[in-house]
């Protein structure tokens, strides 16, 4: 508070000589703000400027190279909501986001509850399950490719063993969306698990002992003690995984390259294809804006909603 006051005094035009004004600035600590100038500069140059530029491009028919382009108003936006391909891509993106985060949280929580039972191998299991998190998701996609590929894929080998026909899993426009969701879930469920484990370990043991004395069974203890107390972990894990799934890109490139056609594309992967493949930069920028709006709405509403639930629980 005291600092704010000195600032206000300074702002008045009572500067005597440049040296004293300078000295005052230093003494009040306002000079300290210089320390975040580099960061702010980077932000303005590489985030804000491109962002507004992108809004502008979304109202044009720019092809990405030519300097000659026209202002076409909301045409790209109208086109987007009438484009059946984009509608499908939005659906896929929601499956990647919501689907993976639901699975990650359910499995992650189950694993955490299990490991919290003083399992002897806890450290080892945690190491293994968390390992994929630190591996590039592109490489993780290639690794799973060996399972799902058509010829000689590990899953088709099993199908053949039972006398079935090999299935073209990655070429199936419905199944491949779920396969991609599965791979993303597998890779990042370790994050949910670790967050829940940390939440569980912060719950004092006496709570459970007291509840047990009062005659509460395991389910009641979970509902009334565990669940409310891991609510912050639930919020963070849900939002982190939602954002991660909604912007999915690498795994899709590795497994299907958005195909067949655009059947398994997410908003980020179709944006890439439209820009570099079809030279439709104006439209691609519009999809970027859509993605920005979608992710902000989903993550902010879920954050607010889950935070409020934390308080009420």
């Amino acid at each position, binding site marked *: 508070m005291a600092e704010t006051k000195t600032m206000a005094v300074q702002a008045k035009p009572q500067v005597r000589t440049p040296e004293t004004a300078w000295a005052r600035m230093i003494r009040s600590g306002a000079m300290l703000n210089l320390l*975040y100038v580099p960061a702010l500069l980077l932000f303005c140059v590489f985030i804000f400027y491109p962002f507004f530029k992108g809004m502008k491009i979304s109202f044009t028919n720019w092809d990405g190279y030519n300097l000659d382009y026209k202002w076409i108003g909301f045409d790209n936006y109208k086109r987007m909501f009438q484009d059946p391909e984009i509608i499908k891509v939005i659906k896929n993106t929601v499956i990647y986001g919501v689907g993976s985060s639901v699975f990650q949280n359910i499995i992650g929580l189950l694993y955490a509850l299990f490991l919290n039972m003083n399992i002897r191998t806890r450290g080892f299991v945690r190491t293994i399950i968390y390992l*994929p998190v630190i591996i590039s998701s592109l490489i993780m996609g290639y690794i799973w490719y060996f399972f799902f590929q058509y010829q000689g894929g590990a899953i088709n080998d099993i199908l053949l063993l039972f006398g079935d026909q090999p299935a073209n899993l990655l070429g199936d426009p419905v199944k491949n969306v779920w396969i991609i969701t599965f791979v993303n879930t597998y890779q990042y469920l370790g994050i949910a698990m670790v967050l829940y484990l940390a939440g569980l370990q912060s719950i004092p043991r006496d709570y459970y002992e007291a509840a047990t004395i009062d005659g509460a069974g395991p389910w009641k203890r979970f509902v009334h003690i565990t669940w409310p107390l891991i609510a912050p972990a639930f919020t963070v894990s849900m939002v*982190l995984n939602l954002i991660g799934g909604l912007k999915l*890109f690498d795994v899709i490139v590795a497994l299907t390259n958005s195909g067949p056609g655009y059947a398994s594309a997410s908003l980020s992967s179709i944006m890439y294809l439209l820009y570099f493949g079809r030279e439709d930069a104006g439209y691609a920028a519009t999809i*970027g804006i859509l993605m920005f709006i979608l992710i902000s709405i989903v993550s902010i509403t879920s954050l607010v909603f889950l935070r409020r639930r934390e308080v009420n629980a």
Partner: protein
Amino acid sequence: MTKNKRFWPTLLSLVICLLHILPFYVLVTTAFKEVADLSSKWMFPGYFYFGNFLDAWKEAHLASAFRSNLIVTVCSIVLIVAIGSIAAYPLARRQTGWNKFIYAVFVSALIVPPLTILVPLYKFMVDIGGMNQYWGIILLFITFNLPMTIFLYTGFISTIPRDLDEAAMIDGAGRFQLFFTVILPLLKPVTATVVILSGVAVWNDYQFSVFFLQKPELRTITVALSAFFGQYTSNVGWVAAGSFMGAIPMTLVYLFLQRYFVNGLASGAIKG
């Protein structure tokens, strides 16, 4: 009695591990198999054939890719830590209305993925000559990792008692000096978290590197591997060996420092 009680959970835990290791098992069997060996991927080859590794190393230009990755990751991390930690100091210690606003601006970028501005960013990078330049992609990595970094550092500095600052000020230290001599040495734990989080993100990045480092001699591991796989999709042995080598460095670092990895993530995220 107790022994029996602990037997089943332990067994279950090992089964879970087995399921999670499965993809890596298939990766290994595929990587060590000769091209002519068409046995199932589930079958262990019974021999170790290193030809795939040599070929993939050469054909995917992995040597130069590793060098690129190292340059980009090390430079990015150093600058992320430097720029992020100094930026957090005034934001944590001088909470004026304006500074609170600046902090909100930095942190709000956590929610929105930078990929959404890909099109204008690409054009902008072409305009400033940052395409196919290490400095171009490094600046991007710094910018996109700053929100998390500033968030972590600001939170951490706020927990350092102000008495410490005052004591140092009485001893005659200036505010800048104070930061470098008193605060900075205390930031080691949070710096470890920042290095790990941003290091993993930068090292494994594909979605930016593939756009901004397209020249073959500048490609990072992920970009080199994806270009290689595009050419040789049918040669799974090469693909597997390439993936294997690409995943090894991070895996080793993780296995040695896993406590920091897991704790860092949990501490960084819970505070959010």
